[in-house]
């Protein structure tokens, strides 16, 4: 199943793009999505603390994704 990935901040640098489509395996929970990111972009594994919004709503790891949803990676940002 495909979902649309949108990245901000340092997540953009890790992925190398601000938008991409990714294919994930069942059972399509955000946990699987996180695993997909850790596997394909090991830098995320080091970062650990990334949050997600699905179709603009902040969601926790147990959330189940559906086809073609937009997943935004919200990275921690500290600068001022």
């Amino acid at each position, binding site marked *: 199943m495909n979902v649309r990935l*949108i990245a*901000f901040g*340092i997540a953009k640098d890790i992925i190398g793009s601000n938008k991409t489509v990714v294919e994930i395996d069942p059972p399509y929970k955000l946990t699987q999505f996180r695993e997909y990111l850790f596997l394909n972009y090991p830098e995320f594994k080091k970062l650990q*603390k990334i949050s997600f919004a699905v179709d*603009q709503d*902040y969601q926790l790891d147990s959330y189940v994704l559906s086809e073609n949803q937009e997943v935004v990676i919200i990275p*921690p940002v*500290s*600068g*001022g």
Partner: protein
Amino acid sequence: MAQTTFSKEELERYSRHLIIPEFNIEGQRKLKEARVLVVGSGGLGSPLLLYLTAAGVGHIGIVDFDVVDESNLQRQVLFGVENVGMPKVDAAKKRLESLNPHVEFETYNTMLTSDNALEIMKGYDLVADGTDNFPTRYLVNDACVILGIPNVYASIFRFDGQVSVFNYTDKEGVVGPNYRDLFPEPPPPGLVPSCAEGGVIGVLPGIIGSLQANEVIKVITGIGNPLVGRLFVFDALNFDTRTLNLNKNKNLKPITELIDYQQFCGIKPAEEKQEEVPVKEVSVQELHQLISDGEQYQLIDVREPYEYEISQINGELIPLSSVLEKANLISKDKKVIIHCRSGKRSADAIRLLQDTLGYNNLYNLKGGILAYAKEIDQSLATY
């Protein structure tokens, strides 16, 4: 309490506010009666302080322990060349008093810590967080939660910014999400660069800090819908924005006291944790002596190519991320001196080469190119 009144000069100054129907003199009165604390008077603090002062917030507190540096002027529009070397709070107060004499300022030339935060922050109606590090962000957030005041948050990195209004209590008494609902725990130290490490485009804090100032004004005056329970994210490079809906995370422990935030963010090791293994070092004076004596040695620079462009001391450029794959270029039989900007990355490179490939001839240039520029060659640009 007697009703707040305005002088003729103030009425003229704020006239463009007073003629907005939903703002009017009531909004202006609320601004004048408000006490706002701005933590950090840097990139975000500059537009925040300028606009809040111009708008007529009655009492503004400013917390910053830093002094104005040449490299601040690219984005910290509150300061000028004449302020370089001055404490930021003093330079800010001087500039802001000339902008609006009807505002009272209180400055705190200190680092906000768990020991002084509640004392400094109590008595303010609202805090605007323009700090530049994770420990202070968690500290400001937790102190706002304990004191029950809103935390108008913004942060920036390179081309990206975030804004939200945390810990806001609405008219029904419902308290909105706070920073920990978004990021329950900080990232490991060193992985998310600050502006000093990762850079920031100069106009970005102008954009994001202005949005933050607008939220402060909305929260004080009660007009419109503040950015509560929502996080605005902005990518200036692609002009991509999202306004993401946030919720209270019910799994989190309630915040009841301040903790050691340096330790929480992994910056100060927990007591039982071992310090990093020390590496052999040479001082910049020793390196300079080696060069003058024409001694045999190899100098390796583990910074990035764009840093090398700013200034360099004739080292061979092998960025930290590629030292292992390019280790064949690093001698094993003569003295090898490794340097970076401050000496931290070069120490990491030495530990990596020693642990993985058994090097024993590596020396870290203490203080890096910054020390070299300070002690030996003042013509080198520092950054």
